[in-house]
């Protein structure tokens, strides 16, 4: 297959070889597509050591092609000879000898920027790169404004900006090398190759070469210099997916914006000229040098993408809002449609059925509240706290209580229909299927209770307290317990498979497309094959997960005690986005019309766009929110430790 260098190293001239009785070859500086570049000594100056750079083109055998190549070579040599800019090396001579053409030019004693970058121990500072960028814009502007001998515009497109074509001479000035005379005559490539040109603009692959293309390549070069990410081994044109400040937070936002402008896909969206880009860089430089005496700590660590995107963030007023008055409205926040006050903390999630919201509170009461206006319809007292969520089925609302009972209460009158005793407090939420109600308890059992005779059909012994809401599908019941054991049990109460997480599985599993998704206090979200219990993937948060995952489309959303709300692509098991709340997120998200709603210990309910994690709004209650919100008729209902049940417009 193709040798990437195009020619074999054997054809290079050996040290000591002399050209035109004048240029004595010292060493090979580089090998290009059509020949080598040498350092040579000019023998016309016997008493001083004067060096020159000699670039060769090895001509192709085909005589007609050869003639054309020589002609174009001479024309370009003439063009180069007419250029006069401090960043462009001087041309001394050109000639043909044997099967090769040679160009003799100024030898630059220095380092190319690729070598400079690779040798640098860390990331380059922006002051240095801005200095180079201004010099580069200056020379590019000179080339683009080139005029022919009749003073007509004849822009020269450099076409190949990259760090290896830029030298830093002994005076630390920028010099452009490799005007790429050979570039147009590269033989057609055969066979698969690795590595793209990396810096070229998209339109260049359609054969378009324009000044705007040089501006893109200049932007690409600056991106590489500031990030140390070589674009030749990154996905082509992926600069916008790899923001400079994500890698190098010391870079100013303004500089990032200037480089991003140069890197726009659409040539019309870039700087109209290199001069305009130079002016933008100079303005930026003046501003930063004026400010440089005011030292301020540079941001370090991870950047919250939501904040870069300009999403509203917390204001000092929000932080001060905790205390007596709940629901203080500050910028970026919403106010409730109504608020209903219970006698104690609301820890369980509400459920909505037929325009009635049912919610349990730590005052032992189950409340039925009118959804449109927040008026209480009835309340029902149990003998213990209600940490779980109710379930409504056929005009009966079911809720487990720390009084060890499952209560079945009529939705109309709020009167007890029947109750069922577990052997310990119930902190799980029920699920109804196949004529049974399935609920776990701290007696370390999952109870399957027949709705007709209100007696247990079976009780499955788990290793520890069962506090999650079981998932049911395909004739199977799935649930985890506080020891981290997870069970798949069939409708006869027989274990089919089991799985063990390292810590508690309080999070309720979500069953979606024959895969179970469950969070654990060990900090993982697990995706388990519902058929056999194999772990398909696991996703690690920084701290434990109490939140139950919500799945829609290809995205799973879950909160964690590390304060993040994560969206995971279930087709890869990898993070799609994350949003940082101001406290632990133990509440379970609900997804409604492309928005994820979730509460946090910081007291807020966050409404995040499912597609990208951007904050749509937030609502701040007076105390932590640990329960899951419920959504019905575009209204979000959520309970808070501030004793209120809130109704918020979705």
């Amino acid at each position: 297959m193709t040798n990437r260098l195009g020619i074999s190293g054997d054809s290079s001239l050996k040290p000591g070889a002399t050209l035109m009785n004048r240029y004595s070859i010292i060493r090979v500086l580089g090998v290009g597509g059509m020949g080598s570049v040498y350092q040579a000594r000019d023998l016309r100056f016997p008493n001083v050591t004067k060096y020159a750079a000699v670039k060769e083109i090895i001509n192709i055998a085909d005589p007609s092609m050869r003639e054309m190549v020589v002609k174009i070579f001479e024309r370009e040599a003439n063009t180069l000879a007419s250029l006069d800019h401090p960043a462009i090396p001087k041309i001394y001579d050109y000639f043909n000898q044997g099967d090769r053409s040679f160009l003799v030019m100024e030898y630059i004693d220095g380092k190319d920027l690729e070598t400079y970058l690779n040798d640098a121990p860390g990331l380059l500072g922006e002051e240095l790169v801005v200095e180079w960028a201004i010099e580069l814009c200056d020379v590019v502007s000179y080339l683009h404004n080139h005029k022919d001998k009749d003073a007509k515009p004849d822009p020269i497109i450099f076409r190949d900006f990259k760090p290896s074509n830029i030298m830093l001479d002994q005076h630390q000035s920028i010099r452009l090398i490799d005007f790429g005379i050979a570039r147009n005559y590269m033989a057609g490539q055969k066979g698969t190759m690795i590595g793209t040109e990396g810096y070229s603009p998209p339109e260049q692959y359609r054969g378009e070469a324009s000044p705007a293309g040089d501006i893109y390549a200049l932007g690409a070069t600056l991106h590489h210099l500031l990030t140390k990410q070589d674009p030749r081994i990154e996905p082509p044109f992926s600069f916008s997916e790899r923001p400079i400040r994500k890698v190098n937070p010391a870079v100013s936002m303004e500089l990032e914006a200037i480089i991003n402008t140069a890197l726009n896909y659409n040539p019309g969206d870039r700087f109209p000229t290199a001069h305009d880009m130079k002016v933008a860089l100079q303005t930026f430089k003046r501003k930063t040098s004026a400010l440089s005496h005011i030292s301020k700590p540079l941001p370090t660590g991870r950047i919250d993408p939501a904040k870069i995107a300009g999403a509203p963030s917390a204001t000092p007023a929000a932080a001060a809002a905790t205390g007596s008055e709940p629901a203080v409205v500050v910028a970026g926040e919403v106010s409730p449609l109504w608020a209903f006050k219970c006698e104690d903390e609301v820890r369980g999630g509400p459920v909505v059925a037929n325009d009635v919201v049912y919610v349990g509170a730590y005052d032992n009461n189950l409340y039925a509240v009118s959804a449109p206006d927040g008026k209480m319809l009835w309340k029902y007292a149990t003998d213990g706290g209600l940490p779980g969520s109710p379930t409504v089925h056929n005009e009966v609302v079911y809720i487990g209580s720390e009084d060890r009972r499952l209560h079945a209460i009529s939705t109309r009158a709020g009167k007890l229909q029947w109750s069922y005793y577990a052997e310990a407090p119930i902190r799980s939420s029920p699920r109804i299927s196949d004529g049974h109600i399935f609920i776990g308890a701290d007696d370390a059992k999952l109870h399957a209770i027949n709705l007709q005779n209100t007696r247990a059909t079976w009780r499955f012994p788990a290793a520890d307290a069962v506090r999650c809401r079981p998932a049911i599908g395909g004739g199977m019941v799935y649930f985890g317990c506080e020891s981290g054991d997870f069970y798949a049990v069939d409708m006869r109460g027989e274990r089919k498979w089991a799985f063990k997480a390292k810590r508690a599985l309080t999070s309720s599993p979500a069953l979606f497309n024959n895969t179970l998704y469950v969070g654990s206090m060990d900090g993982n979200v697990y995706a388990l094959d519902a058929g056999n219990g194999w772990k398909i993937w696991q996703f690690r948060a920084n701290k434990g997960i109490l939140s139950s995952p919500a799945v829609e489309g290809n995205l799973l959303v879950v909160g964690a005690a590390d304060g993040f709300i994560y969206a995971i692509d279930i087709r890869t098991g990898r993070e799609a986005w994350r949003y940082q709340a101001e406290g632990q997120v133990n509440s379970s998200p609900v997804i409604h019309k492309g928005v994820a709603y979730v509460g946090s210990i910081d007291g807020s309910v966050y409404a995040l766009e499912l597609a990208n994690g951007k904050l749509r709004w937030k609502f701040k209650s007076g105390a932590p929110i640990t329960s899951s919100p419920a959504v019905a008729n575009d209204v979000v209902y959520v309970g808070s430790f501030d004793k209120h049940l809130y109704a918020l417009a979705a």
Partner: protein
Amino acid sequence: MFDFFKNLFRRRGLADRETLPPPSPPRDPDDTVPLAELGMKTSPDATRMLLRPISPTRLSVGVAQDVGRVRSHNEDVLLSFHGELAGLEAMPNFGLFIVADGMGGHSLGERASSVAARAVAKAVLDEVLPSLLADPQADVERPTLTEVMERAMAGGNNAVVEGVPEGGTTLTAALILGDQLILSHVGDSRAYLFAEGHAEQLTRDHSLVQRLVEMGQITEDEAAVHQQRSVLYRAVGQGEGLEVDVMLRRLSPGTLLLICSDGLWSLLPTHLIQQIIRQSASVQAACDALVKAANEAGGPDNITAILIQLPG
């Protein structure tokens, strides 16, 4: 070009099947018996894929490879392992399938693809087989499948970096456990799913032209003839920290999974691949026919195909 294919496949129609060359012997002695031998009729008009696994419970696998008509070296690698355990403590169907297409001068390409495929397969089998054969009632710590694949791909990458430093390879690996597919992919070999008449390309080529197509700079047709169509920006063996695409799918019963090198897909448009499979009597016959069609279209590159059908 298109008419050429139409003629090609008219000749291969079911009506004059006797004009076809005899199917090559199955490479796997355990492989599927062509449906024709069981006296079953297939109809070209059926909307869903006609192939039916013989056993209702196992994976059917066909494999084929050819050096092509131009190259002297075969730089493609094909690797296939699959197994089943039926009975009281049945295990989910297991399969591991790899296509790798090496690159680099001299014999570097063929060595890179071989080293990578063997390293990936060994890593996956080492981790998965013991858990697969363990007592299902015992509390065995089973590895996480995506992580098994990620570790294996990283291992394959290191094996090339260390063993064939100047070479590189594409690598597409499919792990099937029950109806769960875990696909790992680097480069421009491809995996397609065919289910209920629909074709879906699962993998995304890590090539320059693919990016240009996605950005709307060039069309698919322009990409197919673009001078830089063979330029990849990602391959196994190009240094540490390889980024691997991972894809998960639940496969419905009867779904077909095709993994192939660019020597196949760049010669045969997807609808033709689909048509050839539809007209074949077995997964093995389909693989043989696909390779033959790529050769008849010029065979400029090495050709590799693995076709897997889920039970059901």
